[in-house]
């Protein structure tokens, strides 16, 4: 099996090399490193990778990384984009995922300390799935549960919902919660019932539905 190609873009050389190392250890072949948005877009155009890991805040200014990520998603639909961010606000993630939840991820840079989490997300995105940082989902879930008192999700159900929104598969969620897939499926039916949403077997569509719901667009 040929290794997945990845490009790492970050203006900090320490982070760039650190991410590249984790990706390499996780079976990716890092084909290029970019220091700013322009270098990133050039590198992607030269040889579209399976995955681009992009710092949200990069030269030439502002959140050029986010803009570059959106550009890649539009111009190179086969390239998975994983944005690394220091911002907890879900608005950034929602903007990134607004155009569709396949091949896209939004992780906090905190995850760089957990190589497994980063690699898990990287693999999911490269494989066409999605990944949203659990902390970001947590923000949405907290606000939603606060606002909508009719929905009485148990803590366990809340955790499951966050993992669903983060883009994990049923098997991965069950594993994390330490329950069987069967139990999770039952729980997920309850959750979606309480939310008034249809449980969708397609993971990506399920993520989008939950995200939109959490963001309040469905209310």
């Amino acid at each position, binding site marked *: 099996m040929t290794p997945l190609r990845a490009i790492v873009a970050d203006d*900090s050389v*320490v982070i760039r090399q*650190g991410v590249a190392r984790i990706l390499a250890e996780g079976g990716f072949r890092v084909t290029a490193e970019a220091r700013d948005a322009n270098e990133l877009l050039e590198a992607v155009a030269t040889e579209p990778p399976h995955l681009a890991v992009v710092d949200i805040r990069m030269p030439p200014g502002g959140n050029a990384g986010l803009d570059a990520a959106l550009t890649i998603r539009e111009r190179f639909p086969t390239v998975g984009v994983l944005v690394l961010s*220091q911002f*907890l606000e879900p608005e*950034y993630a929602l903007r990134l995922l607004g155009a569709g939840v396949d091949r896209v991820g939004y992780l906090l840079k905190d995850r*760089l300390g957990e190589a497994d989490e980063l690699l898990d997300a990287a693999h999911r995105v490269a494989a066409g799935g999605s990944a949203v940082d659990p902390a970001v989902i947590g923000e949405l879930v907290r*606000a939603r549960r606060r*606002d909508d008192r009719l929905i009485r999700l148990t803590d366990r159900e809340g955790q499951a919902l966050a993992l669903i929104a983060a883009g994990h598969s049923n098997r991965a969620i069950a594993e994390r919660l330490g329950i069987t897939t069967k139990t999770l499926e039952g729980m997920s039916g309850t959750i979606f019932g309480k939310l008034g949403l249809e449980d969708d077997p397609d993971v990506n569509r399920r993520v989008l539905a939950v995200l939109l719901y959490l963001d309040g667009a469905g209310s």
Partner: protein
Amino acid sequence: MLAACVIAFAMITTVVGIANGAPVQFLATDLVMGLVFVICGLTAVWLRPASPAGAMLLVCGGLWFVGSYAPTGHPVLFPLGFAFERYYDLVLAALLLMLSSPSQRLQPLWLIRALGASIAARSLGRLLLLDPDVNFAAFEAVEIVSNFAIAGFAALVGVVALGRLMRSGPVWRRVRWLILPAGGVATTAMAFDSLEYAWSTATGNLLVEIEDPGGEIFAWAVFGARTLVPIAYLLATLRLRSAPGPLGPLSAGLERSDGSGMVGNALRAALGDSSLVLLRPVDGERWITEDGAPSAPPAPSDSRAVTLVGPEDRASAALVHHPALLEQPELLAAVVRVLRLALDNERLESELREQLRAVTESRARIVTAAEEERRRLERDLHDGAQQRLIGVMLALQQARSTADSQGAPKALREQLDAAASETTGAINELRELARGIHPAILEDEGLEVAVAALARRVGIPVEIGMTLNGRLSRMVESTAYFTIAEALTNTQRHARASHATVRVVHAGTALALEVTDDGQGGAAAERGSGLNGLADRLMALGGRFEVVSNDGCGTRILATIPTE
């Protein structure tokens, strides 16, 4: 001194008149009329020492008695008296011309010279030709020509002086109803007198034949008409003195004034000089008019006088006015005092306004600078400290991975994990800190998104209603954001509310904010230092801030921020 001489002369004249058997009735009337000049002249000198008019009237009085020697029939005194009679007409004509002149000067000089020459010619004719040995026809010819000339020039003086009084100098406008008729009658009398001389010499008949005693009374009336001038002048002087002071209306005018144009109008009205111009110095060098137009430095000329307000080297204003005003030094001084007060007041007020403006601007600058500083700090935290901590975390992660692969002791691996966990905590705290200082999302996504993100983190449901047309300036956005943030923090901490509402409307030139909750109320800007700081910040930007918070009725925070 002059007056003493004149009075002495009057006494002598009367005594001589009595001694020479002149009619007592004539002497008495003559004396009274002459004394009218003397008394009026003396009073005028006392009331208006700056004006030569009083002295001129005294001289008139002196000259009055010269003619009184004519009827004595004395061999020496009669010809002298006859030759030099009615020179007071010349002085009276000069006085009228002077009073009516815009500059209170004797103008036109040629007219006085012509009149004087005519009278002098008559005197010469009477002195040299009135001799039985000399050809009487020559005397008659000189008498006729000179008297016609005198009549003509006297009439001209009347026309010129009265015409000018009609158009009026500033001082005399108020009293022209006194001076005008007196001057008119006097000059008519002068002209009539000389015309009568000329006519009677030429034809042997009087111009106006009235039977005595009417004729005599008429002659006296014509003769005495001259005394109307000193009487009118005296009354006018008294009236000017007793006229209501112009300072009251001036102060009122200055009080109402909101521009120097109004000051000028008040001055023109107070001094009765419509030609008055108010000049103000700028930068110590240049002068400007009331309209702000540049002007030459004020300099006196023949027709203009200059009065400075304040010390000469640093006057606060200059009045360029009619020279006649100089005759009323007390009035001018009083007006200048009032004006100086008003101008000083205006200057102080404008200095105060300027200071206030400077303070307001600097306060806004300080707030803006603080805002910029917060933004910079947030950037620095994100791009500096946080990146480095992430670097540390990556290094720890690599160390952990190395430790794993090389079978390092469990204790070391646990220590590395603990270090990584600490670092994650530091990164999270730093993120919170940076967000509190200045949320990046505000600059990245604007007020609506930032407030939505903010509301999500509040412990109670927050309803948001915001109508904005695109982005606002950084300063406005961040002020609005922090106002809402502080209000919501306040709600969350103290209000025991179950629900809050945020409304933001961009109406016209201001952003209006309203944050309400259904809590227990009782919040006040004085109590919470957070709300206090907000009020300061909003006011520094020219906005307003209000807290309506009654016990048990929730809290309502209203703020406006200028957006232009």
